[in-house]
């Protein structure tokens, strides 16, 4: 397949959607068992309380909130790629945006579970919604946690709508290719798209509009998530740098996650390797370099401000992170987030898929640790020295974390089989239209 044509794109995408083979089924079973671990652990937690999570006094937020921020962060890269890069017409976007957008939707679906999982009384999670009731109870709009409720629900609805909108031409194409029940089922989300000029004009307008709506969300949602922390008075959390720092971190981790997903996807379906070029992945790697620099700068700024403000509590905390008893989380984070991405400056490494994959995994680990550092160490070393504590991970939260990956990848596994994981129409746009030869 030396040259990509409309036909090869069609073929490879359709090929990815044939009924699942052995590998897919084995993979899917693994994913399901991971998910069931999480479901089981959560049911134990519902029954017995947060007894077997490592959360304690004074570290009242732990792995669950870390997971929440981690997954929300992952989601951001997808929106960035599909919306922001669309608006700025970045060429490397087209081959990877569909999968990243799916990643966004699934990551937000995963992230949205964690605020509920971490509740002491998860069955009352609906109390966070402002609904009229006879008891005249209302929610507290001053609480950043409530802002979260709205930020996440807005983000989830917009990204799902955007995702579905982008799918319309491709779904129509699949509808046209299929017969019987399948045709009927695909005809519903395809919304009668026939590919007329008229429809294309409206479609493109709509897509642009949604891209414009989604773009600010990339920044606002994670800013609001960061305010969950920044609005408190705890040193290590109470910082104005948090919003940009978190957004950069989110994109950083999201891009790494895109690589973590795209590289296996590319090798799983032979046709994809021609479509998803190494150059496109390199584009992601460059995003990682850029955001890694921002994140590193933010770390340095936090330390500088702690020193420069002269605030004792800040200084103590930022001493505690690198030198206290939880220092390994910090140094591992610095290694993964600041040092490892330096390798990507070298084109050779950047274009080497195994290296890129390992780096992307390390960045994911690093970004998880960053969130854990922010959540855990700040609470461990609060204002009252008598109440300083430490954290040990416990089985329920470990299992639920594993389960969250199971949940996320379950959707992804389903996604690659029922939807085109590469945007067919947009890929075709980038090709030269196959015009008839002059002499024909």
């Amino acid at each position, binding site marked *: 397949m030396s040259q990509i044509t409309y036909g090869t794109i069609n073929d490879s995408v359709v090929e990815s959607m044939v009924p699942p083979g052995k590998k897919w089924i084995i993979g899917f079973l693994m994913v399901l068992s991971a998910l069931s671990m999480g479901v*089981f*652990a959560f049911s*134990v937690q519902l029954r*017995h*309380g*947060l*007894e*077997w999570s*490592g*959360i*304690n*006094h*004074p570290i*009242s*937020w732990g792995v669950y909130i870390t997971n929440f921020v981690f997954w929300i962060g992952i989601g951001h890269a997808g929106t960035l790629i599909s919306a922001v890069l669309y608006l700025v017409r970045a060429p490397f976007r087209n081959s990877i945006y569909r999968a990243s957008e799916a990643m966004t939707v699934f990551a937000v679906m995963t992230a949205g579970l964690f*605020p509920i999982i971490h*509740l*002491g*009384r998860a069955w*009352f*999670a609906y*109390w*966070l919604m402002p609904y009229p009731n006879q008891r005249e*109870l*209302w*929610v*507290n709009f*001053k*609480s*950043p*946690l*409530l802002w979260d*409720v709205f930020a996440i629900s807005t983000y989830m609805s917009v990204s799902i709508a955007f995702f579905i909108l982008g799918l319309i031409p491709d779904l129509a194409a699949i509808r046209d290719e299929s017969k019987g029940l399948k045709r009927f089922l695909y005809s519903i989300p395809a919304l009668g798209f026939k590919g007329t000029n008229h429809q294309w004009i409206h479609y493109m307008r709509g897509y642009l509009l949604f891209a414009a709506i989604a773009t600010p969300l990339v920044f606002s949602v994670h800013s609001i998530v960061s305010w*969950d922390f920044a609005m*408190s*008075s*705890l040193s290590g959390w109470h910082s104005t740098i948090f919003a940009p720092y978190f957004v950069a971190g989110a994109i950083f981790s999201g891009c790494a996650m895109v690589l973590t997903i795209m590289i296996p996807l590319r090798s799983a379906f032979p046709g994809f390797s021609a479509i998803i070029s190494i150059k496109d992945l390199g584009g992601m790697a460059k995003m990682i370099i850029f955001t890694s620099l921002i994140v590193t700068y933010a770390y340095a700024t936090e330390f500088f401000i702690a020193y420069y*403000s002269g*605030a*004792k*509590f*800040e200084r*103590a905390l930022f001493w*505690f992170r690198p030198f*206290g*008893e939880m220092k390994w989380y910090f140094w591992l984070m610095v290694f993964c987030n600041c040092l490892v991405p330096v390798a990507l400056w070298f084109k050779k490494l950047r274009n080497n898929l195994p290296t890129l994959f390992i780096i992307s995994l390390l960045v994911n680990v690093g970004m998880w640790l960053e969130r854990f550092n922010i959540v855990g160490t700040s*609470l461990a*070393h609060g*204002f*009252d*020295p*008598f*109440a*300083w*504590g430490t954290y040990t*991970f*416990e*089985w*329920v939260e*470990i299992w639920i974390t594993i389960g969250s990956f199971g949940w996320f990848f379950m959707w992804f596994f389903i996604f690659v089989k029922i939807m085109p994981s590469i945007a067919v129409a947009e890929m075709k746009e980038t090709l030269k239209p196959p015009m008839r030869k002059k002499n024909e």
Partner: protein
Amino acid sequence: MKTSLNRRNFLKMSAVGGAAATLAGCQSDPVEKLIPLLVPPVDYVPGKSVHYATTCMECSAACGLVIRTREGRAIKAEGNPHHPVSKGRICAQGQSILQGLYSPSRASGPVYVVDGIRKAIRWEDGISLIVSKLKPLKNKQGKRILYLGPPKSGTFPSLLSSWMKQAGGGTTLELDLMSVNSVSEANRLCFGSAEIPHYALDKAEFLLNFGSDFLESWLNPVQLTADFSEMHSLNNGRKGEFVHVGPHVTLTGSNADEWISCAPGSETYIALAVCRELLEHPPNISRSKIKPIRTYLDSLPIDKSLDKTGISKPKINELAKKFNRKGKSLALAGGNCVAGAQATDLQIAVNLLNYLAGNIGETVLFGADYKSGGSSLEQIDGAIQKMKAGRFDLVIIENVNPVFTLPKQSGFEKALKKAPFVVSLSTENDETSTLADLHLPTSHFLESWGDAKPRNGLFTIQQAVMDNVPQFDTMGLGDLFLSLGNQMEFRGFEAADFQQYLKNAWSEIQKTVKNRQPFARFWNESLRKGCTYRNFTPRSLPLRSGVFSRKPVPPETGTDSITLLAVNSNLHNSNAKGGNKTWLLETPHPLTQVVWDSWLEVNPQTAERLSIKHGELVELETSQSKVKLGVWVYHGIEDNTVAIPAGLGRSVLFPTYKSSRGRSKFIPILESGDDVKVRPRKVGINAMELLPWKWDFLSGDLCFQGEIKSIRSLGKAADLVTMDGQHRLDINTDQSIIDRGLADRSQKGRGFIQTVSLGKTQGHDIDHASKGHHLKKRFYTVPRENKHSFYDPMEENVKTHAAMSDQITTPVYHDPYKWEIAIDLDRCIGCSACVIACYAENNIPMVGKNRAALGREMSWLRISRYFEKNPETGKLETYYSPQMCQQCDNAGCEPVCPVYATYQTPDGLNAMIYNRCVGTRYCSNNCAFAQRRFNWRSYQFPSPLHLQLNPAVSVRSKGVMEKCTFCQHRIREMKDIARDQGRTIRDGEIQTACQQACPANAIVFGNIKDKNSQIYRIKQKNKRKYTQLAELNYQPAVSYLKKVNLNNRKA
């Protein structure tokens, strides 16, 4: 109710009500059941608490209690304000009596053991069994009965002795290991009166204490704490001085201004050296009296001994100078860490000190004759030998546990097995009662009648405050002996029940106290007040010359042997009664903060020599036994001395919550409802196993010192759980402390505890001391000119807050109430009585050791303990601060709650609505004081402990946040009463549980909007006032008053 109802009156009224209920028909038919619900008493209102005055029998001090009952069951123990000794205060162990009343370890009913099979029997059968054993003894007069019980005063001892006499005679012994016999023995030798005198701590300006833990478990700690805080707190710019001499610093020693460390056994010669120095400054005693003392002191090797103690002459000089105050000083000695084989000699030396300083008749008052301590161990040992020889046919053991509390070497257990018939009358199933042939469980003292005479002229009534706890088939001790006497047709046992018997006895007491009212009225009033008393006549006694024949053994030196001390604390003592009470086990030990365990305190130098580290598991061997326990490296113990807490090692019934501690964190730990069962578990180590059976020959006090054969590190971490976190590394960690082999447990300059110093400024007003040159910059607050950053807190303008409440411009939100608390750190001694009062009042579940280790403790109130290094002396000083929810005006918890589960009430409290809480725990994160507690699971209150739960406070379930409420339910109760009477609440009508318990009177609660309230005065006027973490602008409602140190020094 009258309109002049204040808190005290309210208590009185309630008590009257209660008493009246009991007495409704007392002329004809004594009311047995306190609240017979079929025919409720006139004042019985469901939902309303009724208070009964009674007497605490937990230790022999017999403090006055007021028990709050609701719906016929006791729910809270409070101090009786009418009691002249305890004055309305109560100690940690006193609070825990309710856990004795509702103890899951209580025996459910009479048990008869036939051929090793325990069989439940009926009371009548049990009694007739004893009667059958008594019948052959009755006519023999062979003295073949042994009665072993706790020290008792009042009416019961006379009943018992009459019973014993008519039953054929025998030996009656009182078992109590508190080392106070040496006090009375020394007084007998010195002054010819074998009594425990009244120590007027409040009258002393200088207190020299040789080891005694008078703030914890020695004599009456409630009384002594109250007097000590009077003496030692700042008053008109002056405060008393307290020097602690001894090998070990307990809570008492940590409250001293100076600790003089010395090897165990060398205290006597230090005291004698001070005596000799006192002679240099001629005291106010005639020369003829001084001469024999001088001759006596010259005959002793004082100089040589002093060299060995390592205490310099100038120090002795200084002590003598300070001590010489013409009757305004006081020397005390006692407690376990000086209870060696020469305990009485130390007491004699201390008596000499008091005598020479003219304290006898001033701060040491004879004539009080406090009832404390039990029989001499020589007698006990005699009884054991006789028992072994089969000289007792019937052994009766009542509510003491000698199998557990006596050293193994005493051979009590073996001797007991030799006794043909052993009857246990213990309320609880304990180590001794399980060996008895017949166990007839007597009622708890809150369920039965009795009385006590704690000192001369003071008679207290032990009123039954409730009917028997439903599931226990028990009988009052007095009633049991009456019915035994009745069946044996003894003389004087005709009374229908012990209450009647008591009344007859009290008609005699009425004559003693010269009360001329009709008896019914006298009895009524005594019941209401819980006691009747007249002051004792203080006597001053001359020194007897016989005492000069004593030749105290000089301290040994040059030995490398390590001495083991078994020490008491505020929570546990060698009588081990609190060893199975979960409140006492879960309250952190004030100095080490260890919970649910025993530990070994080791001096850092000793630890280095033995190459053992803090937190390591060691094997400790004495000639008696070998145990494994964790090491706590502690600066407050003399080199070559190690200490282990006494009174632990009992088996405790506690729910078997599962835990992942020490297991893989990847493998599920599952717990079904059936997995949580109430099972016994051994908590800690019985220190008595390690001690030899040895006593001071003069007094018969147990020798609490043992010799260590070896201490060997086992090379692994011990399972010690401590509740403090500040030992963790920090930017401000002081490396020099770590170099000394200790952890830096300071507050890292965070200003939770602030101090001022009095020194040369004695007599200056405190304003001068706190603002001027005496304020050492050891703590966080900085003056404006020294500000380095905008985060630095300024010295607070203490008046701002109170002034703000005057301004109309501020919203009139808090009207008419705004509740605030002030805690005087200068008074607080860290005794944790408040912590347990809070447990009892607010239904706080006990979480156990594993959960405490994970940071799952639920205590709403904790005592933060900090060891601060004094920059001048380099010594570590101990500070305590009670920390509860600060009820901030500008709280961190409130705005972050998404569902308004916590909000600001119009009274200025941070209310917590459990029902609305979804458990996001953000409030806990944003609480700078780390005061919120989350229910990580649903906890159990093992039956019948659930009967103690306070109906006014909801029991929280899993997933909700909780915290201190300032005893909101008490505020509510009083608000309702005030509203019914159309008035506002007056100052002092509401007391929080912690305030009410505090023996040192360190906590003041009140309405800051009330210009006449005590709290307003303190916040307006007191220059020592500060709030913690003021720079965060949380505006806490809890203010602290700075600790006042003398000369910038503290122990």
